């Protein structure tokens, strides 16, 4: 049995073969060679139905998307429940579905460790970020970070952090998408990447946040339904007994009962803590996730969003765990799913896909393949919208135009930015096909945790934060994160081919987040300018608004 080609999260921490790359499971990149599958007609038909439905929604959304608020936030008219589903749709990627179930299939319990890491950031977002973010912001998290600070400096920096996060994430998604679609549908890699890029441009350019939200909601419902069906089918086989499921799986699996305990994925405490920090605080610094909080009317709906999202995401991870064990039971000993060497056809990431065939036949296989494609589209659309907003709202409207800008000009810029980002994503997706992109999502998380999160957090909680401190400290976090990843094992050794990594750990967050907080603190304390005094005084009004929502950017009326 092979290890998943899919790069793993806690992985770096250990006994994974060195050819394996390490990065968060959200990483979403399916790396390595893929064998193209025969054209899958049922999957293509169901995918076309999905595309037709989402294009119809985009058409409907386009008629409503006349204002900047509509474009960026769907007018703030999404309910907490809908937003919870959309957040789950934004967050549950194809790789967390296929990758984590594949990891469970290969090493059992370790898959659960990954899932938990991705979930625990959510309660923290609720307790310290969600309500205040909604009360203070309008379209992007930079609204909040720069609320009482220098607009030009802080928005430029926040936009850099956003674009870096989005770009790295998007490339990883595009490459993963191309390979996955090649695998599932039998389409050539380039066509798959262009198709994903084109659909994403259409959704976001015409339908803005409204279309993106509904694509994410539909995808979340499809993914949760499909995964629920598979998990139920597995449990049906074992008489709804978990003990029976685990016993039969352990009896078949080459590692036996060892799959029921941690398999040494985490061995070194520094890496373990560093990764934990990156996941927990990186999630709270992802621009496409933070942006979702502006789509609801007020703080109450914002907090309900997180409650529902946490429930859906937690449920989904429990399903993937059952699906992984189900695949051991129903796939690993079925010659129809194995190649001549006894490995899974298409690699271990295909465990859930083969299980779909084993439990629901070729029609259900087609359904799950179409869901995987839909999943990719939902995630890249959210990313592109977040990147376009950073360009049009933060850089164009606030920095270049000093906040004095015609709304229609701003929307036009955001649509152009969407098209531009889409084309860049397609180009880079094709360019990076054969590259090792495993470091990218890990780096995206590190930047989110080290540059975006500390500035956002201290802007909301620390009176003493000044423009100078936020700017220098944020840049320190950004540069430290990038430098340590480049000097670390994932780039210095795996890509540049050096023998020894200069920085020994795969996850920089423990160091880069600390550096960012220290930098912000030191340079804020050193700032004695008149402006910094005014910024500290302005904290009071910001604090009252963050608590009460007085002056909140409200939903647009129809």
């Amino acid at each position, binding site marked *: 049995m092979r290890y998943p080609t899919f790069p793993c999260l806690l992985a770096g921490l250990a006994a994974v073969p060195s050819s394996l790359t390490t990065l968060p499971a959200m990483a979403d990149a399916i790396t390595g060679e893929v064998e193209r599958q025969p054209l899958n007609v049922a999957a293509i038909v169901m995918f076309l139905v999905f595309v037709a439905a989402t294009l119809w929604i985009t058409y409907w959304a386009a008629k409503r998307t006349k204002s900047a608020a509509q474009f960026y936030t769907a007018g703030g008219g999404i309910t907490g429940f809908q937003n919870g589903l959309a957040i789950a749709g934004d967050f549950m990627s194809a790789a967390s579905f296929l990758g984590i179930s594949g990891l469970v299939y290969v090493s059992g319990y370790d898959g659960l460790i990954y*899932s938990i890491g991705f979930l*625990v950031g959510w309660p923290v977002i609720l*307790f310290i970020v969600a309500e205040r973010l909604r009360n203070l912001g309008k379209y992007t998290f930079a609204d909040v970070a720069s609320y009482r600070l220098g607009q030009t400096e802080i928005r430029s920096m926040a936009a850099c952090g956003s674009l870096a996060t989005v770009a790295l994430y998007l490339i990883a998604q595009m490459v993963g998408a191309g390979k996955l679609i090649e695998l599932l549908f039998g389409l050539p890699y380039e066509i798959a990447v262009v198709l994903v890029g084109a659909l994403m441009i259409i959704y976001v350019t015409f339908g803005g946040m409204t279309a993106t939200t509904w694509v994410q909601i539909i995808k979340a419902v499809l993914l949760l339904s499909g995964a629920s069906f598979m998990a139920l089918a597995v449990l049906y086989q074992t008489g709804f007994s978990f003990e029976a499921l685990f016993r039969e799986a352990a009896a078949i699996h080459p590692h036996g009962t060892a799959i*029921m305990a*941690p398999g040494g994925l985490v061995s070194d405490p520094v890496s373990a803590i560093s990764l934990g920090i990156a996941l927990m605080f990186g999630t709270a610094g992802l621009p496409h996730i933070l942006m979702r909080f502006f789509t609801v009317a007020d703080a109450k709906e914002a907090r309900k969003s*997180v409650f529902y999202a946490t429930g859906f995401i937690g449920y989904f991870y429990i399903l993937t765990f059952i699906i992984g064990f189900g695949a051991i039971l129903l796939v690993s000993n079925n010659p129809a799913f194995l190649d001549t060497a006894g490995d899974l056809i298409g690699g271990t990431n295909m465990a859930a896909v083969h299980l779909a065939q084993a439990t629901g036949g070729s029609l259900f296989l087609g359904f799950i393949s179409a869901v995987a494609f839909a999943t990719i589209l939902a995630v890249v659309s959210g990313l592109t919208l977040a990147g376009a907003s950073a360009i049009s709202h933060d850089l164009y409207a606030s920095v270049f135009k000093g906040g004095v800008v015609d709304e229609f000009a701003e929307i036009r810029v955001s649509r152009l930015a969407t098209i531009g980002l889409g084309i860049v994503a397609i180009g880079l997706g094709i360019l990076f096909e054969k590259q090792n992109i495993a470091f990218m999502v890990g780096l995206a998380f590190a930047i989110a945790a080290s540059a975006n999160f500390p500035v956002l957090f201290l802007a909301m909680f620390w009176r003493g934060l000044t423009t100078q401190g936020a700017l220098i400290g944020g840049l320190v976090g950004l540069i430290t994160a990038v430098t340590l990843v480049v000097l670390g094992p994932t780039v210095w050794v795996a890509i540049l081919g050096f023998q020894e990594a200069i920085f020994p750990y795969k996850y920089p967050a423990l160091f880069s987040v600390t550096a960012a907080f220290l930098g912000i603190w030191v340079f804020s304390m050193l700032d004695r300018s008149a402006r910094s005094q005014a910024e500290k005084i302005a904290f009071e009004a910001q604090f009252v608004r963050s608590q*009460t929502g007085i002056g909140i950017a409200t939903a647009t009326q129809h």
Partner: protein
Amino acid sequence: MDAQQLERIRNNESFRKLVAARSRLGWQLAAVVICLYFTFILVIAFAPHLLGIPLFNGAVTTIGIPIGIFIIVIAFATTGLYVGRANSEFDGLVRKVLEETE
């Protein structure tokens, strides 16, 4: 919000109560989740065999399974707890603050 209203809100008793109650609950629950998660991670790093103890005599299921599920459930439950308190208590306090400081 003008300077006078700001001053009135800052000195308002209900506002102080709101801020204190929300911060206390938020940080307490955050501490619960963060401690639970990092304890789990450190057990995996230092003593992974602890999670491999069978759930009962002769079981294949290990205690690591319910512990993992427990963390997922706690993550969800704490968000529910926070939302429940916020809906019943904090929103009422916010309304009170606004009424008292119009």
